[in-house]
């Protein structure tokens, strides 16, 4: 099991199956910066990392380009991921390739951050979400 290594920014996880590293950042775990969303306490850091690995394994990317970010969802959105009811999360691709990825919960009211049609349709076609959740994402994220 990849238990991660603590550093000053968070817990750094060693490369996963596809060779990507991931850091669970401290500022998405306790409120030290305004405007940074927080993971729910019951989503442990290892679960956060596993959620990233699920996104990576299934290529839950915003488009099929080489610079696309990933998104995550649990139990068709029934599981809240963030402390303010966020039920989707985004994993940002590092600017420099060997750097670690990181992720955070994204709420409907975060403007300009949306999984986009490409991924929503992929999720819907592959049964990750049902039709109600498909429409819910379109109607509330922009």
């Amino acid at each position: 099991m990849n238990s991660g290594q603590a550093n000053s920014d968070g817990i750094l996880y060693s490369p996963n199956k596809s060779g990507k590293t991931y850091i669970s950042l401290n500022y998405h775990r306790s409120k030290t910066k305004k405007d940074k969303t927080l993971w729910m306490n019951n989503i442990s850091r290892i679960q956060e990392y596993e959620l990233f690995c699920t996104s990576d394994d299934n290529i839950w990317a915003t488009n099929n380009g080489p610079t696309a970010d990933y998104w995550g969802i649990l139990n068709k959105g029934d599981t809240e991921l963030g402390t303010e009811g966020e039920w989707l999360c985004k994993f940002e691709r590092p600017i420099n390739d060997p750097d670690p990825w990181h992720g955070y919960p994204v709420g409907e009211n975060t403007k300009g951050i949306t999984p986009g049609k490409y991924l929503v349709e992929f999720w819907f076609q592959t049964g990750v979400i049902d039709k109600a959740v498909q429409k819910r994402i379109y109607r509330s994220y922009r």
Partner: protein
Amino acid sequence: MKIAKLLIPGRFENAFAYMGRLITVTEDRAMQIYNLESIANFIETKYSVTLPTPTYMFSRNDWFSSPQFKTLMQNEAIAKDLYAAFDRFPQPFLDWTEISHLDSKISRPELQKPLAINDTAILDMSVYNNRIYIGTTDSLLHLDVEIPQGATAKVQEPQKRLEVGCVNIAVKYGAANASCGSDGLFTLINDFSWRPEVVRRTEHIESGSLRTGWLDYGFVNYPALNEPYLFKFQSEKARQNSNLERESRVLTEVNLDAESFTDYLPGNVKESDFVDNTQYSYNSNNSFFVRTNAGKFYSYKIKKSRDASTSILPNSIPEKSISRIVSVNPTKVGPVIETSNRIVILSNETGQLEVLHDGRAIAIKTFPQSKRFQHLVAITIDEGVLLVSLFDEAAFTTPNGANGFSNNSHQYADLRF
């Protein structure tokens, strides 16, 4: 509260009750129109012990408001018999296919027509003045429909109105507000030429919009679920020919200087505090609802005074704890609140929440502007369209239309985050 549910099985995207019909769009992109009056009559012939529930609940909600009905309900014995008839309606719901197969004519929709719509997903539908507006991930379309009395409905071919995705459509005052997410808010002005001298046009009003809510002198745009901005508009008297909606005024111009709607809240709530602490906000013509991130739900009355100034006052409904709100839809009985995993009604009369459906919805529509369907909720679910009709007997059990609840003093003074 008496609740009657009728399931029309099928694979639907959206459903809208209009002029005695249920207008639906199916998953395989066909329009199906059902005659609700015929359906209610047929149910009454098969379940005569429920008479007159089916007609009142699924075809003529306006009869609940008639002076004759109110007079009848003052007779305790008649009221008791009527409640008993409501209670005999099949629970938890009547599956239309259980009886519709008994008559081959009624088992089919009145109209079934393929739609030339290839857009990825259908997101909203609204019907107004014989025009069906459909918002999709890729466009806004309209189809004109004819719904003659005693004859079969006809639908024209779709016409594309906008080439951007449209997540919500709100129609009133001869206009349509098309909320198009990050592509913004578009208003289709004088869309039926009720003022011939005013140019029929589409205006881009704002850079972001998830939905709008009409007031009688403006509308509130929501660029995010927690950001209400008030836009005022100019209007002129409507010509009555072809005006099936009985609108007295036509929107002719939108004032582009928006104000934060939170400025009208009691207690000097700062806009930034409101946004930081609110998960969801919503307005109808006379109410404003807020759910905070902490899970508290507040209801307000919107008042417009004679000098045209607006104020938002606390309602008598006490604060409630409620899970994350997805949508709010007004009915005459109270707002229908869609939460992350269930749909509830908040009674105007008692302030109590009652579950209408346990589970998620593909679409929910209510019909506050309708004559006949103000008590009806059309919930599109995986199994079909669940028509939920609501009759709140509390409105008839005590004088003043409420069981003492509406006489409560305001139970809170302002927003408490």
